[in-house]
């Protein structure tokens, strides 16, 4: 039980070092109208100076509650019901409000997910930063401003003087998060709590922040608690990791050791459901964790993960509370699995039935020189407006039963393209042909019913995708009737049932309202609705990015199964290269409205790369210790789409940019192999000479160790 074992600290040469933070058997409950809801039970953690400890888990696992408990910010209905939180040896829960206030901010600082919500919109950045020092360190104003500026420089904010004078809304999301981190570091805290600090940011921006977080420990000696749902980020930033499930820590250990040799079925399930580079949709599909997270007041007896676990044995796993058990042969590791010594951890998970890749058919969608420009109204006095080129000369095609992924960061125009394709917007120039029907300039009202039915969409946000006022069944039935698939009332109901079967939901769900469904279930209904009219092409706009990883795997697999069965063309829009690598046949990489590179998936993931693709690949966090990545961290932010650089749109951030060429002349197309097109000024030899971004450390161990 006692996880606070005598763990040697790397820097501990002599004398006992007091841990910066120690949670001992911590239990936190929320008190709601439904009664006491245990959010965290029996949580242990020991954080030594300068260490980074990751908390990883899916939503509802209690990782944020731990952070709030550390900050003593549980609010009116949350309470620590057991255990203690020692900060520098003092129990935070027993401290007076006055002392707590001094400690928060000065010795413990927290960074939240939404940087904009942490900054005061009515104060300049400089004033906000200086305020910390004025209050905590009682410095004079000029000294405080000077220190604030220095801190901004140390978190590598470009042009700190301009940022100091700016209001938060005038700087980009990545810079906002840097400012928040700078603010947290200003009073030189001993402990920094980061709650999903990069989730709201784009990958290439995220990579910069991650780099910064990694340096903080070394530069300032700050200990870090890093909360994330992303195993890859934890691997890149932390020394230790605690995996949480349903309010409990289920596995603890040094990051590398734990990732290499998993000792808990839940962690094992998590890794099987994320698209690691070794996963493949044909030979090694994702394996979702079956079942659902138990409700906090409805947790099973014994092991919380029991009902979903493939190693579950009635009588031992469900007999009583499971303690954290030591892992054999690993000194600092603990796992909350009673069968830890019985399970063969090396055995790869049961290989699922192999699916043959469907051969792509004829060309279904042909996009040629498509452009979509928006005229920004200059306002009533400003006169002529500016033009935003949301899409600029897109050219590609998609075949029947093929998955084409569009990848890019926010503002790259991928959603605009979806709108033009579905007819919510019309193209400014160029053409889109679906089969032999021209769609480019035809808005949805002018399209005939067959074309509309042939092109449907799956949306991103599961909480928005269904109309909360109508039952699930009626929303699916509406599509069936609207597209005239069935007219007879009984047949419509049959088809609704069949569609619910198809997305693996109980038929009784037809009568439910969306609020009674979980996020993953809503997304399944969204898929059923998209396929209700037998479409020939489905556009999926980030369909799984808002879901938990284990649910993501299930929904992804489902979407692909249905696509395979119906031979539907899937346009998969995403910012997540790992998932795209897993499921796409071909990939388009977009940047500022242009396709920078396109080709088959294996062509995109191997050199020659477009410099932007290279940076994207390097930025994706990979939860696999065997993969070694080459670091390509981009400087600067995405230029505004209304004011793109004159030549190559990427020239402002490109590490290879050739001054005088890249920023003036639009780049030519280089086609290393048929269908693989790179839009770049670099000489073909330079491109061909690029080294792979990801490489394996020990190729021989990879085949042996299977899933983990």
């Amino acid at each position, binding site marked *: 039980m006692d996880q606070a074992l005598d763990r040697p600290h790397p820097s501990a040469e002599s004398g006992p070092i007091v841990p910066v933070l120690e949670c001992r058997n911590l239990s936190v409950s*929320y008190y709601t109208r439904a009664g006491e809801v245990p*959010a965290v039970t029996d949580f242990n953690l020991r954080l030594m100076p300068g260490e980074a400890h990751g908390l990883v888990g899916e*939503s*509802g696992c*209690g990782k*944020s*509650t731990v952070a709030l408990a550390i900050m003593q910010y549980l609010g009116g209905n949350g309470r620590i019901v057991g255990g203690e939180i020692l900060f520098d040896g003092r129990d935070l829960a027993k401290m007076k409000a006055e002392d707590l206030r001094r400690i928060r901010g000065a010795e413990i600082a927290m960074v939240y997910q939404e940087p904009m919500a942490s900054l005061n919109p009515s104060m300049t950045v400089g004033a906000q930063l200086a305020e910390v020092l004025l209050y905590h360190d009682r410095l004079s104003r000029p000294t405080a401003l000077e220190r604030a500026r220095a801190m901004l420089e140390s978190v590598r904010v470009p042009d700190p003087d301009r940022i100091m004078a700016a209001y938060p809304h005038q700087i980009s999301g990545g810079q906002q998060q840097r400012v928040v981190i700078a603010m947290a570091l200003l009073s030189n805290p001993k402990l920094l709590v980061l709650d999903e600090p990069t989730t709201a940011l784009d990958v290439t921006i995220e990579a910069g922040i991650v780099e910064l977080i990694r340096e903080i420990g070394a530069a300032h000696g700050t200990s870090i608690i890093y909360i994330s749902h992303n195993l890859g980020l934890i691997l890149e930033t932390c020394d230790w990791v605690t995996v949480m499930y349903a309010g409990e820590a289920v596995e603890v250990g040094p990051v590398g050791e734990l990732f290499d040799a998993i000792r808990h079925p839940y962690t094992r399930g998590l890794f099987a459901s994320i698209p690691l580079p070794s996963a493949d949709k044909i030979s090694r599909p994702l394996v979702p964790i079956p079942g*659902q*997270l138990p*409700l*906090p007041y409805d947790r099973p007896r014994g092991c919380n993960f029991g009902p979903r676990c493939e190693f579950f044995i009635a009588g031992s796993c469900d007999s009583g509370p499971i303690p954290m058990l030591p892992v054999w042969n690993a000194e600092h590791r603990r796992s909350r699995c009673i069968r830890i010594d019985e399970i063969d951890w090396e055995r790869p998970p049961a290989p699922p039935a192999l699916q043959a890749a469907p051969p792509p058919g004829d060309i279904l969608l042909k996009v040629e020189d498509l452009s979509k420009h928006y005229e920004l109204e200059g306002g009533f006095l400003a006169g002529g407006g500016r033009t935003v080129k949301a899409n600029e000369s897109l050219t590609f095609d998609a075949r029947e039963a093929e998955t084409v992924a569009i990848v890019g960061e926010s503002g790259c125009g991928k959603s605009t393209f979806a709108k033009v394709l*579905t*007819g*919510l917007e019309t193209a400014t120039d160029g053409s889109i042909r679906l089969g032999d029907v021209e769609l480019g300039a035809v808005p*949805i*009202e002018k*399209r005939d*019913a067959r074309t*509309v*039915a042939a*092109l*449907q*969409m799956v*949306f*991103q*946000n599961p909480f*928005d*995708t*269904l*109309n*909360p*006022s*109508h039952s699930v069944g009626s929303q699916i039935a509406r*599509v069936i009737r*609207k*597209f005239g698939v069935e007219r007879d009332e009984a047949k419509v109901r049959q088809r609704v049932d069949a569609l619910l079967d198809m997305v693996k939901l109980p038929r009784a769900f037809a009568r*439910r309202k969306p*609020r*009674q*469904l*979980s*996020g*993953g*279930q809503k997304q399944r209904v*969204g898929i059923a*609705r998209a396929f209700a*009219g037998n479409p020939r092409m489905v556009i999926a706009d980030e369909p799984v990015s808002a879901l*938990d990883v284990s*649910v993501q795997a299930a929904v992804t697999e489902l979407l692909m199964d249905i696509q395979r069965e119906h031979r539907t063309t899937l346009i998969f829009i995403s910012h997540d290269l790992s998932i795209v690598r897993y499921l796409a046949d071909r990939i388009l990489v977009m940047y500022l409205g242009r396709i920078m590179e396109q080709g088959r998936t294996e062509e995109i993931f191997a050199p020659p790369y477009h410099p932007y693709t290279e940076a994207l690949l390097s930025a994706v966090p990979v939860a696999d210790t065997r993969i070694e990545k080459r670091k390509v961290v981009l400087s600067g932010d995405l230029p505004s789409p209304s004011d793109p650089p004159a030549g190559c749109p990427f020239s402002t951030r490109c590490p290879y940019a050739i001054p005088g060429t890249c920023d003036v002349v639009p780049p030519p197309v280089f086609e290393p192999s048929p269908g693989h097109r790179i839009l770049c000024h670099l000489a073909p030899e330079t491109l061909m000479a690029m080294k792979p971004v990801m490489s394996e450390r020990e190729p021989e161990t990879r085949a042996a160790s299977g899933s983990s």
Partner: protein
Amino acid sequence: MSAIAEPLPSPPVPVLARLARPRFALALLLLIWVPLVAYVMFGRELGPYRSYVLIPAIPAALLLYAVAARTWRESTIAVAGLTLVFFWILLAVSAPYLPLLDPNKPVAPFVTPFTERNGIFFWLGTDMRGRDLLARTIWGCQRVLVWGITATAAAYLVGTMLGLIAGYRGGWRDEVVSFVGNVLLSFPVMVLFILILNYLGQSGFNIVIAVTFSSAPAIMRIVRGLALDVKSRDYIHAAQVRGERPLRIMLVELLPNVRGPLIVDACLRLGYTTVAITTLTFLGLGLQPPDPDWGLMIKEASTTALVFKFSYMLVVPALSVSSLILGFNLMADGLREMSLRD
């Protein structure tokens, strides 16, 4: 904490809860409302049926009260407001069947409350012309309720439609609707009322028109704002992508999802409208004597009631108005409280 709501097990549904489903509640409301409107507005056309039309409304009102009180039992404030409002609604629908004196017949002037005169016990006394105040209050309540709620409903119909068009369709439609709305909102409400009623003549229907003109722009703004928010949701995009007509999207996909704040606002606005109508009759605009009406009663009593002994003539209708408005406002507060809680 958790971003994903787990499905809730559905418990067995008792009868009252079953009736609380919007469709049944709406049916009950119509069962009260249609007879009341028919009785008050089209009494002459009903002929001999006039004395029966309100009979089904009495059990409907009682049932609706029971259902609503049960549904809102979490909020004491809402139930208190509901009780006040339904007290008046029940009196309004049962007025013809209560043993009341003719509200327009002079019996005995200046009888103070709780005294007996000529063998009749006067609970609330009589006014200066000798008319029974109890009968006048109850009959007056019927008129205030019918015209007040009808006017609010009309304002809502117009305001919601315009708001949906402005918010969802946007563009030039939004510009036109918003501009006209702003012009109307720039008039002081009373000036607008007086202008319209003087121009159109003084009658209940014209009060409805006047209230619509003054309230619809504000409602339009609320609906427009809500529609602007909801229209960016994915389910609206889903409807657009399957080629639904704008009218269907506005009414079926959009409107049900903005009903929460609208219902709260409607309760508040019912209070304002009641005040407005009472004020209008007090000013001598709108509903005409001799039929009883609270505003009229206050006006008629305004000089006599200066004598303290006869102040009850003013206090009775004034308290009635206040309690009804208080009821509407408490209901709005309670509903808002409940909507914020979940």
